[in-house]
């Protein structure tokens, strides 16, 4: 069977992908948008299912621009949609273009596109600690998407623990929805959070975010919920489901302060909020170059001023170029869309320059804000050593503990790369393909060997980027 050929395939229907699509759709180009979710919007705008009617969905001015973009593109008659499609690989072709492999309800499929814009976003970084896999321990973003998309409150009593301010927003939403929040704990000291207020330019350019955050804090306080600083996860109960969360006091560098009593909470849900990792596997699998960033989300994809990666015809936009949020993703998507038109020779260089001038200015401001936010929410330096004790599960899929990996490092003094540790211990070989354990594994190696993560390297990104059924490969071969 021959593949359909598109001018542009956009992978990921979040703010970046939607903004790119909108620009390309203004021209006579065939666009297809693929996304693993059933409806467009990305994680920030995880829509309720079509069958639900939700009044005032995602209220608040910080969502307005992105929501408007979503509605414009979702209703656009010229878009080809492939939703609920999980992209497993991008293969550069010898003739011009790329082949995209994806799995959906019909099985394994492929298509061709002259250009690709990859907007694969990010996922949450869990910490490893004793009990971390007990049902009831969730990503804070997960708790939020159950609320905003499925419209369910996942538990009765909640604790949030992390370093990222997202947990304030979600805690407030949980309180509003009728949940009981026992505490919101930040591992860093209050002073590192307040440092952002010393940057008046950032406050001025992003006042809406600060107002939203202030409102959340106000409402959390009003509900009598303590917001703690210098307080991190220690452990939770093991077994059938979560019932006890223990938090510990840590100093400014993240070391345990054992002279302070631990805090114990009886809750059924714990939201973890220790930052995000960019989802760059697909881009790396295709062969695009990446660079390490400690606090902008891991292995980020390098790109030109038109958002083209080191692989010709593969454009990238949004979080996988560095965590920066929905507003920055929208501007990057816009620039990538124009860049794509430029490389398809549908737009002249002069017009492209002119059209992107404002987006570049805005992007710069958003990136300054993202930098400040990354600084605020970075993990205290010794936090991982404090939290990731020997019996903590490092690789959740293969059930490999931190202790096992430490032992392997001791026994193999020359092993340094994440890949060699993967081969030695099976860490990162399971179904999530290292998405959840990579950052913790790499940090553990870096700490033990006293090296930088750049020396450790990423796990190899291979096809398929997400597990697929062998039967679907066989079926595809027979076609």
């Amino acid at each position, binding site marked *: 069977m021959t593949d359909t050929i598109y001018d542009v395939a956009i992978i990921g229907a979040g703010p970046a992908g939607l903004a790119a699509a909108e620009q390309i759709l203004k021209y006579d180009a065939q666009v297809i948008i693929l996304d693993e*979710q059933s409806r467009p919007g990305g994680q920030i705008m995880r829509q309720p299912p079509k*069958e*639900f009617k939700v009044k005032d969905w995602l209220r608040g001015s910080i969502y307005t621009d992105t929501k408007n973009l979503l509605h414009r593109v979702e209703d656009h008659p010229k878009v080809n949609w492939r939703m609920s499609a999980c992209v497993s690989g991008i293969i550069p072709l010898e003739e011009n273009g790329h082949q995209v492999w994806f799995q959906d309800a019909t099985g394994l499929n492929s298509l061709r596109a002259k250009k690709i814009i990859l907007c694969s976003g990010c996922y949450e970084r869990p910490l490893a600690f004793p009990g971390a896999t007990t049902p009831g321990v969730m990503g804070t973003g997960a708790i939020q998407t159950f609320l905003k998309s*499925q419209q369910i409150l996942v538990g009765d009593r909640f604790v949030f623990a992390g370093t990222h301010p997202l947990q304030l927003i979600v805690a407030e939403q949980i309180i509003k929805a009728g949940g009981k929040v026992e505490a919101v704990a930040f591992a860093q000291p209050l002073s590192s959070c307040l440092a952002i207020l010393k940057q008046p330019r950032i406050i001025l350019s992003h006042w809406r975010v600060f107002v939203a955050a202030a409102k959340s804090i106000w409402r959390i306080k009003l509900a009598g919920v303590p917001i703690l600083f210098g307080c991190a996860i220690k452990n939770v109960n093991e077994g059938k489901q979560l019932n006890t969360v223990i938090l510990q006091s840590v100093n400014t560098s993240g070391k345990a302060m054992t002279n302070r009593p631990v805090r114990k909470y009886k809750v059924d849900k714990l939201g973890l909020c220790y930052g995000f990792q960019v989802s760059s596997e697909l881009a790396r699998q295709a062969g695009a170059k990446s660079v390490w960033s400690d606090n902008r989300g891991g292995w980020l994809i390098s790109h030109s001023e038109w958002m083209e990666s080191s692989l010709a015809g593969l454009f990238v936009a949004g979080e996988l170029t560095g965590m920066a949020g929905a507003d920055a993703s929208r501007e990057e998507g816009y620039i990538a869309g124009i860049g794509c038109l430029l490389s398809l020779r549908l737009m002249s260089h002069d017009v492209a320059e002119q059209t992107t001038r404002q987006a570049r200015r805005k992007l710069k401001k958003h990136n300054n804000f993202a930098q400040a936010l990354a600084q605020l929410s970075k993990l205290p330096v010794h936090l991982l050593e404090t939290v990731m004790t020997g019996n903590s599960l490092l690789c*959740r899929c293969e059930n490999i503990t931190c202790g096992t990996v430490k032992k392997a490092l001791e026994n193999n003094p020359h092993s340094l790369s994440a890949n060699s540790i993967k081969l030695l211990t099976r860490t990162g070989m399971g*179904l999530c393909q290292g998405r959840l354990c990579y950052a913790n594994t790499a940090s553990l190696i870096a700490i033990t060997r006293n090296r930088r993560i750049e020396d450790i390297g990423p796990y190899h990104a291979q096809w398929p980027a997400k597990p697929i059924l062998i039967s679907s490969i066989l079926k595809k071969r027979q076609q």
Partner: protein
Amino acid sequence: MAKRITNQITRSALITLTLNNQQISAFEGETLATVILLSGEPACKLDKAGNPRGPFCNMGACYDCLVTVIDPASPDKRLKSRACMTMVKAGLRVFTTQEDSI
């Protein structure tokens, strides 16, 4: 325990499926993860050490929500499926207790 938010929300038709051979009802558009959380069943799967796991990411990344499903359209096929990425369907048979043996 999880609960549906009802204020300002209109849901669609109720359908019936089974969870571990028990009949349950769910609204169209709900995911299996939602239904499992609402049922009070804490876990979706057992991990390699036989310990229970529940949804962690709700976005298809962690695979902790893997369940076994049998679709009424092909009743002799058992498929592993991420509960957070799979919509309910009338007559679907869902099992949470299968050991993760992939």
